[in-house]
């Protein structure tokens, strides 16, 4: 291994792409370097599947494209994909026994766009798929303790560990993505965010992650949890990297996803360097109440002070229905999930119980065996709230409040350009600490749920360290289609601080 390649894992996506373009390093060399790191850090439980042959073949193709001058913008840079995106060459399990060993006949649009495929006539960015990373089963969870899939090097299901403290959770549901990036096993990973599943693990693992406006990134090939909320986004170390990745991921996919927005792809990195002097940052009082841990509060306050130094103005605002976002989310998301997961019935693909007496028995045993507790819990909640006689009181009512929550944001954006606050009330907790207390897990989603329900873009930016020297993220929420401005604000903070450059010990 050359001197140049021994520290490849410290390079940002932007820098790696530059060196690959300049042919200072080859894509094959890069892929081999990261594959070796993944193998060396199997104990983290971040990866669930590798296919070295495919990864190296993609790397060779990237090298050829780079040599021919036909390469995409991010050609040869390795990328890990959350195992909620379906892929042809890797398993697609959604962290569930139901899909153990399942291979999809097609790649998700996001995978094609970042990779070497063609999606909607647009050639991909040329990235190399490193492997699939763990997640909570069907993206339901905020600790990555709900995966039923055995990570690489493990004989059975095992929790993903936080690289900053192996006894702690990485957050979820994109926990494998966050842990892989934080441990420098991949320069970047895809994530999905339904109620905070990109932002919260990014915060817990000290990396940067953004969930774009609902409809920006195609949902085709994302195994659905809650259709009206699910949205893909990139997770990387810096805002600049996220901007590059997001530019490649987004764009209309109208032939395959009806909820895909007909807005052209953008260069989200175009305004990273703009000054944020005069930027009005809204501070919602409801995000700084009793439930917020003092260490998190102090860290977030310090980051906000940095913004003031950069010339931004902090404007007190109110998002009065913040608390209601928890019950609203935990009605709507399970309702949609209960229906989305009906296709897992043992008839066509995935797990089917071995012994059964008749059709209904086959359904019951298949689903009882195939789904984990949290998934079953949400299917039951969702089935209940959609049932005859309860629909109006739960589902319809929740939809009404959801619209009010979205209206509250529009009211707030009259007075500010972006909204800032904590991502989560605490730093990452200990593995097992809340495993038997679903409600405690649900309550911890309070700050990420409002933007999800409103379909707004939101991100987590490393803001410092709290209790146990664990990372704390600052959440930035923007109005619809304001991703470039969010990334600009995040990048400016990252020019003034180095939290996003710090790395966990022992990696």
């Amino acid at each position, binding site marked *: 291994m050359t001197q140049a390649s021994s520290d490849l894992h410290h390079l940002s996506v932007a820098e790696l792409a530059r060196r690959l373009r300049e042919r200072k390093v080859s894509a094959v060399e890069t892929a081999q370097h990261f594959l070796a790191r993944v193998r060396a850090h199997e104990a983290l439980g971040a990866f669930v599947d590798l296919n070295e042959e495919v990864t190296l073949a993609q790397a060779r193709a990237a090298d050829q494209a780079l040599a021919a001058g036909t390469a995409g913008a991010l050609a040869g840079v390795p990328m890990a994909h959350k195992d909620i995106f379906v892929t042809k060459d890797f398993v697609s399990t959604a962290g569930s026994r139901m899909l153990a060993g399942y291979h999809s006949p097609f790649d998700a649009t996001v995978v094609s766009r970042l990779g070497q495929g063609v999606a909607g006539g647009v050639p991909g960015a040329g990235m190399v798929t490193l492997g699939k990373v763990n997640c909570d089963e069907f993206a339901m969870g905020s600790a990555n303790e709900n995966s039923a899939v055995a990570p690489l090097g493990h004989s059975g299901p095992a929790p993903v560990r936080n690289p900053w403290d192996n006894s702690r959770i990485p957050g979820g549901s994109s926990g494998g993505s966050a842990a892989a990036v934080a441990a420098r096993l991949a320069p970047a990973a895809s994530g999905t965010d339904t109620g905070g599943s990109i932002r919260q693990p990014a915060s817990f693992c000290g990396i940067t992650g953004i969930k774009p406006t609902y409809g920006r990134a195609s949902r085709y090939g994302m195994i659905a949890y809650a259709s009206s909320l699910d949205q893909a986004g990139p997770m990387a170390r810096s805002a600049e990297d996220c901007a590059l990745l997001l530019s490649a991921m987004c764009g209309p996919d109208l032939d395959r996803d009806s909820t895909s927005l007909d807005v052209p792809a953008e260069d989200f990195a175009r305004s990273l360097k703009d000054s944020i002097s005069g930027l009005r940052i809204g501070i919602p009082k409801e995000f700084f109440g009793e439930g917020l841990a003092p260490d998190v509060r102090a860290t977030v306050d310090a980051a906000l002070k940095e913004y003031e130094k950069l010339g931004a103005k902090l404007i007190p605002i109110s998002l009065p229905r913040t608390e209601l976002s928890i019950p609203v989310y935990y009605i709507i998301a399970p309702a949609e999930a209960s229906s989305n997961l009906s296709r897992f019935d043992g008839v066509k693909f995935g797990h089917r119980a071995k012994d059964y007496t008749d059709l209904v028995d086959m359904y019951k045993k298949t689903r009882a065996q195939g789904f984990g507790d949290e998934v079953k819990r949400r299917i039951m909640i969702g089935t209940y709230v959609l049932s005859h006689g309860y*629909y109006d009181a739960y589902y319809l009512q929740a939809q009404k409040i959801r619209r009010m929550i979205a209206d509250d944001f529009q009211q707030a954006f009259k007075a500010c350009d972006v909204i800032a606050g904590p991502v989560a009330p605490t730093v990452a907790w200990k593995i097992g600490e809340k495993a038997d207390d679903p409600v405690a897990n649900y309550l911890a989603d309070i700050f990420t749920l409002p933007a999800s329900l409103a379909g707004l873009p939101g991100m987590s930016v490393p803001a410092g360290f709290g209790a146990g020297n664990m990372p704390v993220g600052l959440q930035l929420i923007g109005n619809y289609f304001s991703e470039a401005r969010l990334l600009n604000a995040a990048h400016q903070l990252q020019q003034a601080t180095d939290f996003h450059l710090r790395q966990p010990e022992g990696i």
Partner: protein
Amino acid sequence: MSTPKLVQGYEVVIGFETHAQLSTQSKIFSRAPTAFGAEPNTQACAVDLALPGTLPVMNKGAVERAIQFGLAIGSHIAPRSIFARKNYFYPDLPKGYQISQFEIPVVQGGSIEFFLGDEKKSVRLVRAHLEEDAGKSLHEDFIGQSGIDLNRAGTPLLEIVTEPDMRSSEEAVAYAKELHKIVTWIGICDGNMQEGSFRCDANVSVRKPGGALGTRREIKNLNSFKFMQQAMDYEIRWQIEQLEDGHAIQQATVLFDPDTGETRSMRSKEDSADYRYFPDPDLPPLVIAPEWIERVRSEMTELPRVMAARFVATYGLPEYDATTLTQSKAMAAYFEAAAQACKQPKLASNWIMGEVSRRLNAGELGIEACPVSPMQLGSLISRIADGTISNNAGKQVFDALWTGEGSDVDALIKDKGLKQMSDSGALEKIIDAVIAANADNVAQFKAGKDKAFNALVGQIMKASQGKANPQQVNELLRQKLG
């Protein structure tokens, strides 16, 4: 509405739900083809199989066909309609839910008008909504197991729902035939009932006249007009018997067995599932702008009832004739060509509804296969109208045209010597000869017996070998005897 016909003192109340398969090339939410009869599971793509990560995308062609239907029957086209999920588990339902329209359908209201005998009927529609078909479970051929064919899964359907406006099985069948005519006329459905492209469910109940609506039972999947009639008649008799025996009717879904001619219960109301309908979050509301509706309207073929009204106004036809002639596009086109060729629309109508239809029915032929062209029929009618040949001679010419004995009307008239006598001198000679030879009849007529006159006419016609104009014979004979 006229006084309803009662069956054993009961009034019959029928409402219909019809699933018309829309004639799109691809499925309603995927690009897989819809052609009938392919090998199992060869026309089901990843979306139809509900593979993880797949999503539905609306086929605009299906929406256009729904708009066409709505325009054809005077409905309101909803500017914004909603797709919902109907959740239930069944092996031939790949997603575990069917995408359908529930609260806000695309087509709202409207009516279907038709003749039952010579009585004009109108059945109001509640709605017509877009939905996807399920696959098929194959219970034969797999010992101890069932096979699933998902070729049909995702086929676009328009479910057309009426008010309970029909009062007899005959009326309901006439409605179904009229609906079938409309959907095939405007080309949104191929109407093939054997292949399941047009399937009806009949909601049947009976009540004492003036009473509240009875409990209904729904007969599912009636795919021929004959079975439809048999099934409803059986069901009506069965319900009346139950009531007469003092049993209450339980709401149920029943199937008709053509072999036994009976209906049998599939499931009762108690078994009915809670479908947990909710708006499909994968599909935004279906928005139909007025411009879209206008474009569809401008591209639409002339509708049967508009055409019928035109036949009344332009050709002076009675409404009954106009409605009958617009039973199919081909029939209407045949009429128009014939009427324009002879400038005698009513005669053309009479011939088509009479002799032409009789011959077609006897040969089980459609009008498209009629061996006599509308131009030939037109010249034939012209020759009758201008007195060249008699009506009876016209039938002989028609026969010759039908069998292919000849193709030119005038040549056939000449060859067969069918031309009527126009020379009154020659006719007078015949009449004089007949009067002279039939003194008895002449005497009887003069004594006041009209029958004797007819006998004389008959003799004259015979003597003229049928070529005399009967009207002329009448006049001349009366003069001579008068």
